[in-house]
């Protein structure tokens, strides 16, 4: 097996890896971007994902993976700088603008993203989506939360369970 380049992008030819979504779409992406995923980083350090064989991701469909990679590509340069102590205020403002826009999406896409970020262990993306979802539910009633996140109406069983749970709280106030 070929020794992996120490991919600092020294002469412009950054190392590429191939990721394969659950629905068999192949994505070719810079190793530095894919390495934002702790899970993938290990495989990539071992020299995997290059050439003809890609890294299969059976839990991530192509729509979600392209969104995940959009995030990784945007964040890879800053991550390579180790939290970017020398990043300019402009760079940081631009990343923040990107992040805000990036999560301005339907709750079902947020759900796919948070699951993918969890499985691939992409910490920044997981926090970003978690924060967005938290902001969506803050200060809302349980029914408003259910509606916001597309829950079906509670079944009679669920309703009964909720009522039972209501009573559980009484003790703290006796």
């Amino acid at each position, binding site marked *: 097996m070929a020794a992996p380049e120490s991919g600092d992008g020294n002469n412009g030819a950054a190392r590429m890896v191939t990721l394969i979504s659950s629905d068999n779409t192949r994505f070719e992406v810079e190793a530095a971007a894919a390495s934002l995923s702790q899970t993938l980083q290990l495989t990539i350090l071992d020299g995997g994902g290059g050439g003809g064989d890609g890294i299969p991701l059976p839990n991530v469909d192509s729509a979600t993976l392209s969104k995940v990679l959009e995030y990784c590509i945007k964040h890879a340069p800053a991550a390579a700088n180790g939290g970017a102590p020398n990043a300019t205020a402009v760079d940081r403002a631009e990343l923040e603008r990107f992040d805000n826009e990036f999560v301005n999406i339907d709750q079902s896409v947020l759900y796919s993203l948070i699951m993918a970020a969890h499985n691939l262990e992409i910490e920044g993306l997981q926090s970003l989506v978690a924060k967005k979802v938290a902001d969506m539910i*803050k200060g809302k009633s349980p029914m408003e939360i259910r509606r916001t996140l597309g829950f079906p109406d509670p079944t009679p069983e669920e309703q009964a369970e909720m009522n039972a749970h*209501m009573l559980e*709280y009484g003790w703290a106030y006796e």
Partner: protein
Amino acid sequence: METAVQEKSIIISAATATTTTTRRMSSAAAAPWADIETDCLVHVFRRLDLDDLASAAPLVCRGWRRAAADPSLWRALDLRRDHLARFMPWGPLAAAFKLRYGVHRFGFAGFLRLCVARARGSAADVALPPLLASPAAELDLVSLECPRLRRLAIPKLPAGDEARLPELIPRLPLLEHLEFESKPSSSSSFPALAAQLAAHCPRFTSLKTSGAVKPEEPPP
């Protein structure tokens, strides 16, 4: 008051009825957010405040109830921030507890008991608000139920309760930081407190007095 609450719950069920049109993928696809892994949901819940975590999240569905009960979410109990707005009997939190849990006498003491119970002994950081209804009982609860406490912020206490502080210290062997909202007033109990901290809290590093420091009042 009672009828107002009734009306509110009727409004909520009416609003629920209007959402049935969005239910197209109910049983087959169900709601993914209901079946989401607990770990994942805990990440979201870490960004909610205690009020939402106590009064809304557990009632969404069974999975959310399990995640909201995760003790790690109840380690830092800042009950001092915005305490006036949060714990007033006519505030939104009291209204939510009344409507959703049937709690008619919402107050700080009950909320504290709830938080401490959820933490299951893991609370590490507790800040108590001023004007506690029964400071002795509340300090007793915290010292007994929070054996892993590292930081404690306490309000101005009546002299009698302040004098009892030294005897609570041995229950808090991990204490590192103690913060008084005002300078301890009874000069006699302070040396005893310092001695107890030295004897029982090997990691103790800082004692702080926050808030306005007033000049000594002249003796009457």
